[in-house]
């Protein structure tokens, strides 16, 4: 049975309309609703389902970030994860924390925890990088199953259906392996109140990148963060004829 590590990130809630800071250094995060990255919820759900099917023995949720990152670890624990690890990174270091750093942290923890499967979301909806799974797999020299929409567990391998540009593709990966979850992998469960209460008793270990020997010095400099160009207000047309007229005018037909 696999020991599964899941990576969870605390991000601004997907429904929030973000605001760029006036000094163009980033986006406003203070006082803004945060929650678990939607793709990570799917990763957690998949791990929990593996445990329910007796394919996984223990699930460990990891989050790298400031103190509040513990909130998303608690959410994962309430969904059925066994224990949490909070790798504390805050302030300026968190501003420039990138998938390269997170992947090194995950790789170290994987060795430490003797995990043999890692599931993370395919991308975080804040930086939209889509890199962590691939980089973690490389760091461990494990196979990678990215953009997974279906996972079938074998004894020594997994068969994964991937969402690719033209449709779907199927691959077989030897275990241990790293998986990145796509939206259609599953429908995450809601944590029930009793489970949220139980989750408060589950352990969260705290450590720092330094404890793991991971250097988080910045690889990028953010030059600016700005609002995207605003589209000019359009017109509401009275009927289909008016629309046909506009399309002709624009040379579309």
């Amino acid at each position, binding site marked *: 049975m696999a020991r599964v590590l899941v990576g969870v990130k605390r991000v601004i809630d997907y429904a929030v309309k973000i605001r760029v800071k006036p000094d163009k250094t980033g986006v406003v995060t203070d006082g803004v609703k945060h929650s678990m990255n939607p793709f990570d919820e799917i990763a957690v759900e998949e791990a929990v389902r593996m445990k329910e099917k007796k394919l996984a023995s223990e699930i460990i949720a990891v989050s790298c970030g400031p103190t509040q990152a513990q909130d998303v670890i608690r959410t994962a624990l309430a969904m059925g994860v066994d224990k949490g690890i909070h790798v504390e990174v805050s302030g300026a270091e968190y501003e420039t924390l990138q998938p390269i750093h997170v992947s090194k942290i995950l790789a170290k923890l994987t060795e430490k925890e003797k995990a043999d499967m890692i599931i993370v979301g395919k991308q975080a909806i804040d930086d939209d990088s889509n890199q962590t799974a691939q980089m973690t797999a490389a760091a461990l020299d494990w196979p990678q199953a990215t953009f997974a929409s279906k996972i079938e567990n074998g004894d020594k391998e997994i068969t994964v259906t991937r969402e690719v540009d033209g449709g779907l593709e199927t691959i077989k990966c030897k275990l241990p392996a790293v998986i990145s979850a796509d939206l259609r992998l599953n429908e995450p469960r809601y944590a029930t109140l009793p489970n949220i209460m139980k989750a408060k008793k589950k352990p969260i270990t705290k450590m720092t990148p330094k404890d793991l020997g991971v250097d988080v010095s910045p690889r990028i400099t953010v030059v*600016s963060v700005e609002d995207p160009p605003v589209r000019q207000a359009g017109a509401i047309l009275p009927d289909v004829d008016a629309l046909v007229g506009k399309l002709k005018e624009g040379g579309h037909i």
Partner: protein
Amino acid sequence: MFSNCSRQLTSQFSNHLKRLQSTLIIAEHDNKGLNPITQNALTAAKKIGGEISVLVAGTKCGPAAEALAKANGLSKILIAESDAFNGFTAESLTPLIISTQKQFNYTHIIAGASAFGKALLPRVAAKLDVSPVSDVIGIKSPDTFVRSIYAGNAIQTMKANDPIKIISVRGTSFEADKLEGGSAKTETVPTDGCATDMTVFVGQQLSKSDRPELTSAKVVVSGGRGLKSGDNFKLLYDLADKLNAAVGASRAAVDAGFVPNDLQVGQTGKIVAPDLYIAVGISGAIQHLAGMKDSKTIVAINKDPEAPIFQVADYGLVADLFKAVPELTSKLS
């Protein structure tokens, strides 16, 4: 002895040339032809300046290499043909790119930000201990790139400090290179050590369509939850046929099973920027807008006048799509 000699020469040369840029483009193809996003990546590489090489790896590289040989401004096309690259797995291609990088010392490695490029480049970057830059929409200088974050709601300009820049580029943000006027020479690169049993490609289930490909179509007609069923998408196919358009969908339409996932337009689906985008029965959630708001002209047909899609639409029609779409289709003939 000779090889030692040439190695010394190479290192002396590279010291002299180290300020110059040299880019390796990883070509995307399907063993039958070149994927057009490679042409967009080529334009991006030309913006960086310096020498440009292209690596074509696969079980059959001929067709893609022939297409690329016509491109101007290429110094070399590297060919790596082997059964090891069946299914273009990241696990087999990464050692190839690493050994090519070791041989030629590129300053930049580029691919299109497609499912292929997104799966491959971060693995390569990690092996080189480099922080990759995803889905670049602008190149300000050889080390300064522009990309969108938060589903396209903020634009980040960032300077990559690692010595090798590994970037995936958004196809719709760079013109396609015309692949004309060139005659690049080809060279074979060794593929030893690329075969792996870590990941084995089993097969594909690709959606077949006679319509233009979604990400490069000039016109896209997309449907959302408002279509109510997969059968009703026929209304959009009829309209799309009149306009020679590709058909796309919102996540709601894909999740409801109306259409396959590869039609999804949005933050986590495809990014499109056609001349004309017609959104039918799509409310316009942040995640959908991320995939289409760079379209030149946006038309929205929705019965809800409050739908956020109208805030980005150039032309809005507040109407029942089941009446408006057939009427539009008939008036286009």
